[in-house]
């Protein structure tokens, strides 16, 4: 879900992280607030697709990123269809997908360290009310790092349970995953101290 930086030399790659983040925020707000019908969504999607092309990513990459969103699409669509008419649910889902794809484009074209620097600089004024921007940045970076690790744990637990003939079910996945994640967090804490991030 959280795509990582792909090195490149496109204009989007060269744009500094700060302006990119601000543009992302403004566009996300604009899409969320104003894209109230299918036409607006189509327009916004076209813009996002153009962005991918400008950054040097082909249709295949766009499809690959969309595929990683399939669960979000399913959950958003299904929960809304229960309460809303289908066209409205579809429009809402399209809006979410467009915004997430846009955010993905930013992470694909920006180094995590540059993003974090920008976030830290942006949060600088909050220092006065007791926020430590460096710490916020570190937590964000570690979240990005840890997501694939935890996903890997989940996959290995599922495999182990399958190998022992158990049908994979969410209920029996949660406990071992929690145990492994806590152990991981414990070890990661050690690494943080050992690497001087007290």
């Amino acid at each position, binding site marked *: 879900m959280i795509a990582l930086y792909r*090195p490149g030399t496109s204009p989007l790659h060269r744009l500094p992280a700060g302006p990119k983040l601000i543009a992302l925020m403004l566009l996300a707000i604009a899409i969320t607030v104003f894209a109230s019908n299918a036409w607006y969504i189509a327009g916004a999607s076209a813009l996002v697709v153009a962005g991918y092309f400008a950054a040097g990513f082909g249709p295949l990459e766009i499809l690959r990123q969309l595929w990683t969103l399939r669960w979000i699409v399913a959950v958003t669509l299904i929960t809304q269809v229960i309460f809303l008419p289908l066209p409205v649910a579809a429009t809402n889902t399209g809006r979410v997908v467009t915004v997430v794809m846009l955010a993905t484009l930013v992470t694909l074209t920006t180094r*995590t360290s540059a993003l974090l620097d920008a976030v830290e600089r942006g949060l600088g004024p909050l220092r006065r009310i007791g926020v430590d921007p460096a710490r916020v940045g570190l937590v964000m*970076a570690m979240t990005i790092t840890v997501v*694939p*690790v935890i996903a890997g744990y989940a996959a290995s637990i599922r495999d182990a349970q399958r190998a022992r003939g158990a049908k994979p079910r969410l209920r029996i996945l949660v406990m071992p995953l929690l145990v492994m994640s806590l152990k*991981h967090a414990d*070890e*990661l804490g050690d*690494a943080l*101290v050992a690497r001087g991030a007290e």
Partner: protein
Amino acid sequence: MTTPLPSIPASPDGTPPSRELAFEGVGVDLAGVTVLRDVTVTLPQRRIAVIGSNGSGKSTFARLLGGLVAPSRGRVAVHGHDLVAERKQVLRMVGSVFSNPDAQIIMPTVAEDVAFSLRRRGLTREEVARRVTATLERYGLAERADAPAHSLSGGQKQLLALSAVLITEPALIVADEPTALLDGRNSRLISALLLDEIPQQLVLVTHDLELAARCDVAVRFEDGRLFEVDDPAPVIARYRRDLG
């Protein structure tokens, strides 16, 4: 491979800095239980193997040096610097490596993770980038610089963890079973690096007695006590006999 000698702080009167680990009546209590007791030993050797049964206190000994647990009694000095009184400085002199490389990676990509070690060292961005590139090249990770750290193989991840430690040029490396999760080939790679290629003093906790045999001294723990300190051969021979 030539690595510049780590910057070990010289003593004020100009005498060469010691490269000695000194323990004096050291004990560690964890959660009200004494897990390490009466450790008194001086270790000037470059490569120090730490062996002993499960739960004998090896990791606690390593964590002590890495600054992850504090001594409850006694004094520990790393190259002449007191572990408690000069904690900040000692932490900078010691680099720790653990078994699970996944749990040592903090930043999302390879280069960023190595660069993380140089934060708050007063280096310019260019200097950090230069050192990161040099380190990745030296340890064969340059091609993976922008890859997600998570996508590396187990051996490469451990190499990354080690690079992230070595880039800070510590004076002492503490490795707690660094090869436990690696296959034969990667295990040989990492142990060759630690035992033969780096100039730093090394504390190597291991159940691999062949590795222990290649060190300059072996320390054996049993039941939270220092059981024996000697040349590796006799210590290992007796440990093998005791294991039956």
